């Protein structure tokens, strides 16, 4: 049985098709990455799968339960940490986790023990009895993650868990997420706008753009599908870009060329040998060349190939005290 399954899942907000008929089939125990830029439909998808939003059309099952008909049972089996750490600044960390445990029916000593255990796991024992309002951004994310784990869910939804965090806090969250998957066998549905995060954590990945899944597979499979090296040639004169793409496309061995962010992105096997031919051809055509880079295909190249544009990462304003 799939941990998460969806068919034709759709959400419209008036005229806007936020999620436009996506299909999912996620195996138990895997980390599923859902990669896309802001506004692509990641959060709306997660809000439907976690029963916070009713789909406009389509169906979905989480741990075998229908998200419409068995919404409360779904909520018992999932843990969720949304993009904005949903916390109450007036409570202490311990009070928040204790309340969360009680709402999941875990009262008494079992609840207290679980809270203490989680505070240890996310390294918040020392801050447990301080008001959450005094926590840094990284501490809030860790507490939010702990709140999602109070009732030992089999499936965990994480909506951009590291957006806006500094590298040390990000690394800590990655460590917890990997641990949850490998040690506890939890299925993790993780949305992200960070290529590195998707590449590093996800066993299985889907790229979403404008509400539709445009590529699916493991990060390695996706990159292998490109099948070539990527030569990125920056062209300083914007009006010469189309001509540069045309000239580069005519170079022997070049499979295809895309234009993105002031550069011609050339897909060619054995890029190290081809780069000289490409630069010479551009020079012969009188096109000025800026920086040139050769790389193995990255998820950014996968994204570019599928969407025609690079993934744009939007960082929020750093939160006060954003350190771990």
């Amino acid at each position, binding site marked *: 049985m799939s941990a998460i399954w969806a068919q034709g899942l759709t959400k419209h907000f008036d005229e806007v098709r936020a999620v436009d008929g996506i299909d999912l089939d996620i195996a138990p125990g895997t980390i599923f990455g859902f990669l896309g830029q802001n506004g692509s439909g990641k959060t709306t998808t997660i809000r439907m799968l976690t029963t916070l939003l*009713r789909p406009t059309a389509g169906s979905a099952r989480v741990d075998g339960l229908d998200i419409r008909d068995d919404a409360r049972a779904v909520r018992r089996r999932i843990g969720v940490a*949304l993009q*904005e750490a949903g916390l109450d600044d007036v409570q202490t960390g311990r*009070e928040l986790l204790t309340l969360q445990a*009680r709402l999941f*029916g875990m009262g008494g000593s079992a609840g207290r023990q679980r809270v203490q255990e989680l505070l240890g796991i996310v390294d918040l024992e020392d801050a447990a009895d301080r008001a959450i309002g005094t926590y840094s951004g990284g501490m809030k994310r860790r507490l939010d993650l702990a*709140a999602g784990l109070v009732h030992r869910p089999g499936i965990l939804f994480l909506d951009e868990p590291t957006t806006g965090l500094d590298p040390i806090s990000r690394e800590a969250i990655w460590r917890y997420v990997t641990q949850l998957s490998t040690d506890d066998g939890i299925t993790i549905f993780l949305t992200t706008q960070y290529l590195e995060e998707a590449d590093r954590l996800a066993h299985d990945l889907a790229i979403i753009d404008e509400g539709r899944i445009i590529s699916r597979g493991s990060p390695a499979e996706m990159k292998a599908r490109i099948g070539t090296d990527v030569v990125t040639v920056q062209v300083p004169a914007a009006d010469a870009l189309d001509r540069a793409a045309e000239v580069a496309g005519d170079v022997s061995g070049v499979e295809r060329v895309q234009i993105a962010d002031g550069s011609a992105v050339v897909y060619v096997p054995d890029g190290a040998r081809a780069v000289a031919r490409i630069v010479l051809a551009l020079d012969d055509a009188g096109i000025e060349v800026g920086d040139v880079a050769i790389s193995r295909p990255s998820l950014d190249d996968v994204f570019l190939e599928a969407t025609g544009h690079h993934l744009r990462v939007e960082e929020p304003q750093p939160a006060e005290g954003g350190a771990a």
Partner: protein
Amino acid sequence: MQSIATVYFLTLRSLREAVRNPAQEAGNVLIPLFFFAVTVGSIGSIAADAFGIDNFTGFQVPVAILAAASSISASAGLGTITDIQRGYFDKLLLTPAPRSAIVFGRIAADGVRTVAITAFIVGVGLIFGTGFDTGVPGLLVLLVGSFGFGMAYSGFNAAIALRTGSPQAAAAGGLLLFPLIFLSTAFAPKDVFADWLEVLATINPITYVLEAQRSLIIEGWNGLDILWGAAATLGFGAASFTLTFLALRWRTS
């Protein structure tokens, strides 16, 4: 059973929030007491001749109680909006707790806060010589009634908060009660009103809530007044809780 437990836990959480925000609670009680003092100070001395009311200070105590209830529910509306804006409301919705119980936790806390402030205002009234004609049993009835009215009025602000998510709308929600107070027998009995105002005061549920409370404080036991007050509170609650359920359904659909 799960609903009751949810309401209980979330009521405790809201009360803890209130205790940790004493400035807000002070505002909830001081502003009504200020108006109480000004009203009694300005027309208290002529009330006996003008309206036939000997104990005008006691006559005004229920007005201060209702104004405090209004202030409390406005601050609770803001609390709900803060939860929505911070994403904590979503976190509560993501638990298996019944969603209506999640909203009623804060509403019940407003009832408890109204009881506490009612007791305080009655205490202030006693210091100023209002007396309490029905004694301790009457005080208990008044506190129960205040609990009911606090919850009933809080429902309107919960509905506004859930439907709009706007702090400005929530703050304005607290003011909704003031026109109803002015169109009731808050400052004088109905028999001195102009005809049009008498009609409005007669159909205004706040009139019955005030008169039930007054009967307990300055008139002695009057079963009919208490029944009318209870009916008005129940009607108020039925209307406000219906709006709360509709707003909750809208927010979670």
